[in-house]
């Protein structure tokens, strides 16, 4: 399947001289096409940096990132980011936000309309097409953010704590919507979170990063039976077991930080 991300020897240094910070150090990792991978790690370990490097917003100091074998060179429409703070265009309505990428791609108007409507319906926002972002709640804004990114059909979804600012019931419903969308559309998903339960619930694998400067600590395979309901899944022994594994591994990193 398309949408394989290969990261090799990745290093990112911010600033120069006294302000020099190494955010990521010698990171090697691969996300398969169509796979759902979460990234967890102590705060400040370079998760957002990693995501923005893959998005092509930032340039790597060392190493390469390839999509399906081709090294990336700046941002591209094969990758789509969902930002934690939504980053919607406030001067555009919901509809206009969702069609932005299609406009840039030169898709004709009536086709834009069809595609936009499909994704607006998918995230349950029909009826809100003509609202401006300021008129929406956080959860609705994030659903617009997701629809906007899905609409121009990137192969790879990059999400930076997209539900971090939302309350628990809303998070859970958006998580389930995201899983449905992911399995329907067959995209590669890289999902950053600080919530271990969220990581385990969503992903096939969890990448656990070391504390600053960040690199790969371990990768947890989450081999869960996902055929049941949310309740069945999160109350299962397997779920508890995977959650413990990830939590322990993550905790080691935060512990070291405290004792230092």
């Amino acid at each position, binding site marked *: 399947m398309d949408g394989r991300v290969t990261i090799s020897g990745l290093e990112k240094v911010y600033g120069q001289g006294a302000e020099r910070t190494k955010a990521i150090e010698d990171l090697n990792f691969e996300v398969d096409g169509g796979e759902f991978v979460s990234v967890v790690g102590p705060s400040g370990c370079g998760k957002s940096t990693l995501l923005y490097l893959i998005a092509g917003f930032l340039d790597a100091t060392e190493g390469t990132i390839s999509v399906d074998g081709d090294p990336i060179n700046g941002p591209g*429409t094969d990758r789509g*980011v969902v*930002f934690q703070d939504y*980053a919607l265009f*406030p001067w555009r309505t919901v509809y206009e936000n969702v069609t*932005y990428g299609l406009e*840039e791609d030169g898709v004709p108007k009536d086709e834009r309309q069809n595609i936009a409507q499909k994704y607006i319906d998918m995230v349950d926002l029909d009826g809100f097409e003509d609202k401006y*972002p300021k008129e929406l709640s956080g959860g609705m804004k994030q659903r617009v953010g997701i629809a906007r990114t899905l609409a121009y059909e990137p192969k790879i979804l990059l999400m930076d704590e997209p539900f971090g600012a939302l309350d628990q019931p809303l998070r859970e419903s958006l998580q389930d919507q995201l899983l449905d969308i992911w399995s329907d559309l067959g995209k590669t998903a890289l999902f950053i979170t600080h919530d271990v339960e969220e990581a385990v619930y969503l992903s096939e694998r969890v990448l656990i990063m070391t504390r600053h400067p960040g690199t790969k600590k371990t990768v947890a395979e989450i081999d869960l039976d996902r055929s049941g309901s949310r309740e069945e899944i999160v109350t299962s022994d397997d779920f508890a077991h995977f959650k413990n594994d990830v939590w322990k591994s993550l905790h080691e990193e935060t512990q070291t930080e405290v004792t230092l």
Partner: protein
Amino acid sequence: MDVTADASRGLDLSRLVEFGKSVYSLVILLVLWEVVGQLGLIHYYFLPPLSDILIRFAELTLSGEMLFNAYLTLQRALIGLAIASVLGVIVGVLSARNDIVDWFFDPIIKIGYPVPIISLIPVFMLWFGIGDISKIIMVAVGTFWPVAVNARESTRQVETNLIWSAQMMGTSDRRLLWRVVMPAALPGILTGFQIAMPLSLIITFVFEMVAGGGGLGALEIQGVRSFESAQVYAAIIAIMLIGIGLDRILRFVRGRLLHWT
């Protein structure tokens, strides 16, 4: 039907009362002004009664003199402001987006912005004379700074995430300016215009007082020189009305353009 008509009239009346309440201190002052003038408590030359000023204002308006002078002042101020708006936005936005442009303009803005621009009127008279062109250039130079500074500041503050969002959806660097930077910076750019507008009137008005050539400033100073104090105040009322009118228009345009904020 009668009932509803009455009701709506009642509503209008109460609105009028509300409005009256909101400006009652002003009304008291105006009445006081009239009384003081009529009783001759202040010499006519310093402050004629309000009614005399309004009559003079009406006379000047009916004779066409007021409208012609207002037209001259408005024309100079608005052409100068338009030139400054175009150049100020271009320089401000580009220097926020481009290090080389900023390297060039930053020192110029740092020095130019704080200069009390009125003090340069004699220099402009030396260089460009006392005609329309000189006044328009003066207004353009004077109002350029607030436009450029506000455009630069608001462009700098455009969130990186918005620019990244556009880039990931396929916006090229060249189109980024129109698609994202300008709309995102628009509130600040409009604020610059709103600051520059009264400044354009002040500069024109003062230049006209100093150099003549018609316009409301010239009308006012001519009133002083011919001991016509009513004309002095009539000119002030005219420039006030223009200032308020332009401010209203800018606010309306702002509300229209920024209904999304």
